[in-house]
């Protein structure tokens, strides 16, 4: 018995040591070189986030995906040299820091707290928090109406942070992904879903629009950008260069006229009614 415990303890200790030992800070200065020698970039993207990153059948599509095609074309000479890795808000930084992806293009809002632990490229979008409710709901019109209500948020999202700060009396229900959050609102488990207004507008424009509506404003709009590992400025600088170029050079829009910058043409393709609303 006693010997067994000692063996077990030793094994536990060895496990703990190797786990801590393996946790080296990400060596992050050569991602750009890695991408170029590999001929492909591996990017963490959203797959449940229209119109920024979502799935059309088995294909990743959306505004951020189109921006990535520009980046791949510029850095690797092939717009399709991308491997998309789907991430959600709750796990995206783990994917980045454990080097499962080269960088993130996953609607990451730029905040001071995050600047301490990751690098950001120039913003490619901006979004505030928004409120989505059932179409039949007549009680909630604006942020103050959420007081005392049950509000569903996704962990690690700016919506969660905004609710905690601006509306502490609301009851938060934290669910892992968009799909569960929408089920919770449609089933009456929560009164509202608070998340990036850009996503909510995107969802409203799809089939979900018959069930849900967006109310209120874009609360505390903030830029979002591609995200690289701490110290990996070369990677993010390269992305910034592509973005700066995309904001200057004209590109053909869907009808072939070269009247817009490349970035605006992308936004116009996905949000024709109001392309500027979420542009950086």
């Amino acid at each position: 018995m006693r010997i067994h415990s000692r063996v077990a303890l030793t094994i536990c200790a060895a496990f703990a040591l190797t786990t801590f030992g393996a946790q080296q800070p990400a060596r992050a200065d050569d991602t750009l070189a890695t991408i170029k020698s590999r001929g492909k970039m591996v990017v963490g993207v959203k797959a449940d986030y229209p119109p920024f990153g979502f799935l059309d059948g088995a294909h990743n599509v959306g505004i951020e995906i189109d921006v990535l095609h520009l980046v791949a074309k510029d850095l690797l000479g092939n717009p399709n040299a991308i491997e998309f890795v789907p991430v959600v808000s709750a796990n995206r930084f783990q994917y980045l820091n454990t080097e499962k992806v080269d960088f993130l293009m996953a609607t990451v809002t730029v905040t001071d707290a995050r600047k301490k632990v990751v690098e950001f490229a120039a913003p490619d979008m901006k979004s505030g928090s928004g409120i989505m409710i059932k179409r039949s709901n007549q009680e909630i019109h604006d942020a103050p109406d959420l007081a005392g209500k049950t509000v569903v948020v996704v962990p690690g999202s700016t919506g969660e942070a905004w609710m905690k700060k601006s509306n502490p009396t609301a009851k938060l229900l934290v669910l892992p992904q968009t799909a569960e959050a929408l089920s919770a609102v449609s089933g009456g488990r929560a009164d509202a879903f608070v998340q990036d207004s850009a996503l909510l507008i995107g969802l409203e424009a799809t089939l979900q629009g018959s069930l849900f509506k967006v109310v209120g404003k874009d609360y505390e709009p903030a830029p979002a950008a591609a995200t690289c590992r701490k110290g990996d400025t070369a990677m993010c600088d390269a992305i910034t260069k592509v973005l700066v170029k995309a904001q200057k050079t004209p590109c053909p829009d869907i009808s072939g006229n070269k009247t817009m910058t490349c970035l605006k043409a992308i936004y116009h393709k996905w949000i024709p009614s109001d392309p500027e609303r979420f542009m950086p």
Partner: protein
Amino acid sequence: MWGGLWTLEITLTGIAGVLMVGIVGAAMRTSKSALARGLATAFTEFFRNTPPLVWIYFFFFALLGVGIKLPAVVAGTLALVFYQGAIAIEILRAGIEAVPSGQREAASALGLSPFEQFRSIVLPQAFRISLPALGNNLISLLKNTSLISAIGTIEITGIANDIIAIRLSSAELYLTLGAFYLVCVFILSTILRFTERRLARYGS
């Protein structure tokens, strides 16, 4: 950490529920009534052969469709009780069948009613025989409470996930989380070992 307390509370309620489901189900499974046997067999096969996560989602989301709105803790606990309970039924059934038939015949000769036979003669012996396997089932119940993190931040895994998503530091928190379960399971298995030794005094 309130999450830790919730994990323990769900586990304790769950243990009570699993034992109840297990005992009633095993009694039905070994009874003379074909209806009771059929019901218990159907229940066992249905819940044992499906992943508990499916039932957690079912009780939390799908029941809303028929107007039943269970709180997340209740939905999660029920799902786990049904799943681990189905396994407990099988474990206890094996225990009951391992009790020599002479025991029941002797009890019957003494004039005990079928219910008294089951309660005072068969079940105590079956319980002692089944305890090691039953203990494993209860330990797996404790660990499976982490699945409830899928429907919100109630118990400790859900809360840890939320903190990780905000603070971006995963290794330390996952290790702490692992240590928490390790300590809890160690305590639970110690209690089970103690109970086993106590019951062994009565011989077999």
